[in-house]
């Protein structure tokens, strides 16, 4: 029996998935109602029935590297119809969290962050790091301008970005220092993703081959990357989300947040260009179109986050820390961004800087912890959906 699969249940895996919100997974008795109910499960070995038994048998290797766990959008149709209360939707979500920490913790040096990000007790420490760093940056900006100008002069740059606005965030923490902090952090995160995605892709392909879920024998990276635009279009349209029956309105909220973030990314890039290419520092006039985009994006993020929080509060049994961490972060990002601007326009200098300080801490959370938190789903799900599209998963 050459194709025999030797079972090696991992009890730690079961217990961890249980801890990550999959506490109902052992209730499954394999009726497969979930797979029938799922609007987006493929016909060939559909999820989540097989994921449920693999999870209750502790078969980590069948789950962590499977693209299928990412195809699920946790719409909750399966959970609503499950006759045993096994909540397949939440179980898959817990497995995804486990997969995120499994891949991110394998990264050299920073892998340890993985455990901390999912541990509520470590939240204070994770916040204290950027808080201290940014406080230092503020001190440098406010009290050591002269010294910095001299240093910058040596390398042929100007420390001060001249503006005549009465209040400007750059007077609190220099744009130089902000960018010198966040550009490297962001890039490190990208590197971490590159590292984990490479591993994940080969795992997904091996898993698909073993379970007969693909017609591709070897993984062709070029073809894979060429598939990304097709999938991106689906993601932007929320095609999968809209097939859900149970949680339809969550799709709208998710869309608002996603587009809000994309809008902010565009605005930041434009701002970056204004500052370093045209040498025009902020704050900019409210009449400029990219300011409109920025404001609309901020409002979209706040609204989307509030909608999702409201929906979640209606379901008291959903209380995984990973979810609340992400929702709290999104709301903080959007709200502090908008409030900084409002305080500035109102001429409240101290308030402006204080809120801006919080905003930057939140941004640090977003960038630095991105590969370790639930937000990493943005990257992993895109990668998995692209793989499914590429691999002809039907």
């Amino acid at each position, binding site marked *: *029996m050459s194709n025999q*699969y*030797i079972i090696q249940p991992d*009890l730690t895996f079961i217990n961890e998935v249980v801890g990550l919100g999959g506490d109902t997974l052992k209730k499954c008795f394999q009726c497969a109602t979930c797979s029938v109910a799922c609007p987006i499960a493929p016909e060939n070995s559909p999820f989540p029935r097989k994921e449920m038994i693999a999870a209750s048998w*502790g078969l980590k290797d069948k789950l962590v590297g499977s693209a299928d766990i990412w195809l699920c959008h946790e719409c909750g149709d399966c959970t609503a119809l499950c006759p045993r209360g096994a909540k397949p939707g939440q179980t898959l979500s817990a497995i995804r969290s486990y997969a995120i920490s499994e891949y991110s913790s394998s990264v050299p040096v920073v892998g340890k962050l993985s455990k901390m990000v999912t541990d509520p007790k470590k939240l204070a420490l994770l916040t204290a790091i950027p808080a201290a760093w940014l406080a230092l940056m503020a001190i440098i900006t406010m009290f050591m301008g002269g010294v910095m100008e001299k240093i910058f002069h040596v390398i042929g740059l100007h420390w001060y970005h001249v503006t005549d606005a009465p209040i400007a965030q750059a007077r609190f923490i220099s744009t130089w220092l902000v960018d010198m902090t966040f550009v490297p952090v962001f890039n490190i995160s990208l590197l971490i993703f590159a590292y984990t995605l490479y591993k994940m892709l080969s795992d997904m392909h091996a898993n698909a081959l073993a*379970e007969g879920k693909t017609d591709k024998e070897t993984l062709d990276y070029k073809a894979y990357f060429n598939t990304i635009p097709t999938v991106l279009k689906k993601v932007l349209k929320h095609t999968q989300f809209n097939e859900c029956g149970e949680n339809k309105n969550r799709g709208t909220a998710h869309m608002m947040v996603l587009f809000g973030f994309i809008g902010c990314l565009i605005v930041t890039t434009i701002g970056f260009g204004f500052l370093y290419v045209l040498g025009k520092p902020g704050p900019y006039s409210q009449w400029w179109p990219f300011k409109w985009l920025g404001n609309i994006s901020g409002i979209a993020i706040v609204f989307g986050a509030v909608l999702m929080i409201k929906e979640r509060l209606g379901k008291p049994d959903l209380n995984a820390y990973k979810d609340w961490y992400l929702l709290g972060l999104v709301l903080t990002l959007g709200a502090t961004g908008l409030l900084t601007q409002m305080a500035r326009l109102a001429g409240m200098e101290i308030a402006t800087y204080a809120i801006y300080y919080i905003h930057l801490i939140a941004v640090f959370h977003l960038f630095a912890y991105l590969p370790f938190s639930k937000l990493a789903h943005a990257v992993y799900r895109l990668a998995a959906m692209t793989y499914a599209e590429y691999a002809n998963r039907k």
Partner: protein
Amino acid sequence: MSNKFGVYICKGCGIGESIDCDQLVNVASEKRAPAVVHDCLCSADGVATIKKGVAEGINFISIVGCSKRVNSDIFQFENCMVDRVALRENVAWTISREKYPKKTENDDDYFVDNVQLAADDYIRMSLARLEKVKLPEPFQLPSISKKILVIGGGMTGMSSAIDAAKAGYEVTIVEKDGALGGYAAKMRKQMPVAEPYDSLIPPMVADKIKEVQAEKNITVKTNTVVARIAGQPGEFTVTLKKPGETNEFDVPYPLPDSMKVDENGKEYDAEKLLELYKEYNKGKNDVLTLDPNGELFGAVILAAGWRPDVIEGDAFKHLGVGDVDVVTNAQFEEIAAKGKIVRPSDGKEAKNVVFIQSPANGDDRDFNYAGSVTSMVALKQAKYVREDYEDGKAYVIYQHMRTPGLTEGFYKNMQQDSGIFLTKGEVTAVEKKGSGFVVSAKNTLLGESIGIKADMVVLAAGMVPATADDPVVNMAYRQGPAFRDNGIFDEYADSNFICFPYETQRTGIYAAGCVRRSMTIEESMEDATGAALKAIQCIDSVNRGVAVHPRSGDMTFPDFFFQRCTQCKRCTQECPFGALDDDEKGTPKPNPTRCRRCGTCMGACPERIIGFADYNIDSIGSMVKSIWVPSEDDYYNPPMRILCLYCENDAMPALEMAAMKKAQIDPQVRFIPVRCLGSVNTIWIKDALAQGMDGVFLLGCKHGDDYQCHFVKGSELANVRMSKIGDALASLALETERVAQFEAAIDDYDKIPGVINAFVEKVVAMGPNPFKGF
């Protein structure tokens, strides 16, 4: 005292509209029986009318209206014989006036009023029967023992004993082992018995033993078995002995069939057979010899329990049987009861254990004698592994996971354990790898062929009832010491599992617990209560001189006219309940309290010397003869007459359900209910044909291995007798097709009218009986 007849005719429920009741009064007067017509007999006024008659001395009452299956509580009159004529069901509802209109002024004297003719016949039949029956007198034993014997001192036996003792009955428990407790005393833990049914509990057996010991009505005899149970309910004479001992009152066995014939296959004569029988049972007293030192009991509860099945042989080779680390669930329980789960071969911790529920020999059957209990035992023992080792892993591979009713809670809770893994699957191999095994399975829920590393393998052996190995009850009955035909129940001691729980094929002996089917302790305790109640019902019924079951309360019993007995032994051999023990000459000795009053002996007897006070050869024969068979002298085109003898247990309610639905039945049929088709004596059929009736058919229960007969053998025996009647018919130059037997289940009400009408059509096509008019 001479009997005074009275006929009461009811016009209610549509009878008055379709039948001329004054004409019925005329028919009754032919027999000089006064008849009264009433609009609604079951009303207070109707009953008062009958009571008035009773007060005037009427004691044999024919109540013409509805079936005896309804209003039986209303039409009960002390010291009176009541015959119920079901005109409503057999005539008014099933022979429609639309199809068979009343006679009008335009019709001549030769008009055939089918409805009225049927009604007239039923009045005649009722009066004919009343002339031939007597008021029953109960059979009373000279003395009666009210003690209950419980065989088996396990959870079931002890529970039965406690229940019966608490109800005020003296109980003796005999236990073959040295101590009470049975298998339950060998367990580490047991399945839950109360809400919320989710966790294992400590064994309850120790408390049960204390309860038995504290009960003053209970006597416990350990190291004791039953040598024989002789006599009958109410006066069973029981000989007890130590296990393995020989005793002159050890039960004799009937001669095996192979010893009854000579080398040419010819059966020996009666004398030689008796000699061989005596030789075969040398040193044992005959069944009719009572042990003078025997203890008397009123009823017996058989709670002999079970033994674990042995799994061996080529059929299980792929499961690794023969290896000491491949054990049965019973062996695993022994290990668990001793302490931590360790491997038998080297005493090392067994942290990975695979439980195999089904042998997967090309089908999905479980091991023999397995059931929901073995499913739950696997879950229980899986939990042992988890209790003993934090990193322990227990795998259950099943074809069926049965956790019925509230025990679903137990399944759910065991399933919650992160180290218990369940999957449906077929085990293909158990192979040795190092000191452990790799268990291979296919068609699993994991979607592929899997291999599981195991330190130990546990097979879900079934629970073999004690009655599979040994009669246990050792009844000194002529038919043998064991229950008959247990083979069709896989040797479980049960006569009809669904309809009559606790009943065995021997009156007064009630089975409970795992001799009936595999049961959990909870189920066994509940079963024990049922059997205790049955035993009490038996003693009480015997005390009042009435039948226990299924004709509960029937006061009649078979009466033998011995002067004409030819010692043919047919009654002794055919009685489904072994009620008769013949002596050396072959004369039957009746044991009335063993009897269930089915009348199978009456149907069997070629000399027709057996009968009941209210049901006998003459009473039914006279009913048959009272049916008027018209001939060409009466009508241009005389209607045919077809007799139906139908079983009152299943066929009768089925037909009455059909009647309630106004199903139409051919008016040429006349129905006579019988206690059981087994009681049908072929003389009735001959009587019917001899007086010119054109056909006869029997309507009774399904027979065979999945029989539905209340009396086990009745419809089967009727079938055998009917096949033999063919020769007699042929000698009379009658077509054998004029006689038939049909099977009817109680829910066949939609099919039976079709079956009957089709038979009538067939007989009509054959033409009239040539004996008509002689």
